[in-house]
């Protein structure tokens, strides 16, 4: 059973891997054949060697940026979920806040980074964490609030027939109903947190973070190093995205394919 699942996973990853390898090879060939200048586009192989040569610097940078992205992400998720719960509980608050949140969400929050630098100081991590939190907060809030309120009326009616309290309805119906909405938001904001952190770093601050490694090396015309840093950043984004998928799987076993949730269960025949 496990073996077939693993085999299926690998088979489903196969095409993606193939396309990836083919893409990198093509890239390498195009750059070499057309003699594209280094500062326009370095070859994957030179990016790889810069990555290896600068590994300790890269590792430190990804750790610094990763810490900012993850802490901002967690705080933004927490704030978004808490506010969604509160606004669902008090309908009038919801009606006032949700349109506002949708409007704010449509504005480019990362553009606030220089202002946050002025507010929270440019040397610490707080300013960039605040940017990440602000970027993460709105999608989480909007989606969670939607999931908490868009419950099938039949389900509320059933709970009312049990004379269930609002709190019980929240716990037994609204929260489980909101999980898929929340998971969608999580898939969106997990990689977004890395993007937000890096863009925030473009506006200055300590030089040992991914965003600054990219800008400073690009400034010195060391484009292959900048590209190596970008590769590291995308790996970080991917890792967080994978984390979001795992959370989704674990929190919603009932959404797995038919039979997947209880492969160890041997049902009787229906009579």
């Amino acid at each position, binding site marked *: 059973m496990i073996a077939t699942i693993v085999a299926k996973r690998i088979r489903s990853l196969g095409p993606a891997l193939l396309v990836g390898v083919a893409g990198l090879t093509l890239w390498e060939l195009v750059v070499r054949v057309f003699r594209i200048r280094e500062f326009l586009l370095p070859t994957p192989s030179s990016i790889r060697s810069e990555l290896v040569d600068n590994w300790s610097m890269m590792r430190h940078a990804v750790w610094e940026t990763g810490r900012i992205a993850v802490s901002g992400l967690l705080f933004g998720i927490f704030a978004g979920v808490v506010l969604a719960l509160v606004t669902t509980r008090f309908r009038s608050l919801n009606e006032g806040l949700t349109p506002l949140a949708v409007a704010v969400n449509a504005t480019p929050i990362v553009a606030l980074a220089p202002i946050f630098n002025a507010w929270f100081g440019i040397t610490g991590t707080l300013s960039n964490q605040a940017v990440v939190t602000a970027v993460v907060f709105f999608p989480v809030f909007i989606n969670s609030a939607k999931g908490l309120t868009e419950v099938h009326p*039949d389900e509320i*009616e059933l709970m009312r*027939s049990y004379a269930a309290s609002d709190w019980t309805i929240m716990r*037994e119906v609204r929260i489980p109903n909101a999980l898929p909405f929340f998971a969608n938001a999580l898939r969106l904001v997990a990689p977004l947190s890395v993007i937000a952190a890096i863009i925030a770093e473009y506006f200055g601050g300590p030089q040992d973070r991914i965003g600054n490694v990219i800008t400073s090396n690009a400034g010195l015309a060391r484009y292959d190093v900048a590209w190596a840093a970008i590769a590291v950043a995308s790996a970080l984004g991917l890792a967080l995205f994978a984390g979001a998928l795992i959370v989704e799987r674990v929190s919603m076993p009932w959404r797995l394919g038919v039979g997947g949730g209880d492969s160890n269960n*041997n049902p009787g025949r229906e009579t």
Partner: protein
Amino acid sequence: MSTAIGGTTREHAVCIDSVDMAFNVGNDDEVQALSSIDLQIEQGEFVSLIGPSGCGKSTMLRLIGDLLTPTSGSVSVFGKPAHDARVDQDYGMVFQHPGLFDWRRVRANIELPLELHDWSKADRTDRSAEMLQLVKLDGFGEYYPRQLSGGMKQRVSIARALSFSPRLLLMDEPFGALDEMTREHMQGELLRIWKETGTTVVFVTHSIPESAFLSNRVVVLSARPGEVNSVIDVNLGERTPDTREDPKFFQTTTEIREALRAVEGAV
């Protein structure tokens, strides 16, 4: 009509007193769903509601269950306002739509009302196993609802309503999605439970033989606005599989059919 001064007479299980029900009052889409309904249901009675689609059968069940409030008139259940009966958990309801929670396994869905009533874990497990057997779903307890067919889901929702042995059962076309054999089996089981527990049943159906086989009385509703057209007493005695072939059974179904034909013709 209901409780005598000394409290010696039993109150009615359900007493619907000149009830009108309209939706979206004052808007363009106002619907008069029910009009001047008067109906008393004795404790221990089995009453079926039958009538054309959209005539207000589900609405009537919701009024009894205090899930809707009548535009005028009053509904009392076991001598109290319907609201108090709901809070006291006097009834269990099987909705027209199974309404299972996707995130709960079948067993946990059946145990939901028991959890809300603070039953112990052991008692819950015992009862849900018993209920699964009753609706012939043993072995499916650990499934998720989306892994079941429509008829199986409906049986889970029946098991859920029966699980806490309510004094009053409100059932909205509970067997509509079942095949003929399962349907007859479930009818037999429902009658057995009804007899054993002395519970009162209000049962909505589209099936004439089903209403005749199950009920003490069949209430025929007319359409738009729903009104009680006629109430047919059914006297078939003890129900057995042979009842369905009894000439008296035939007579009853004919009577119901004619009443229905009269209201359908009037539409």
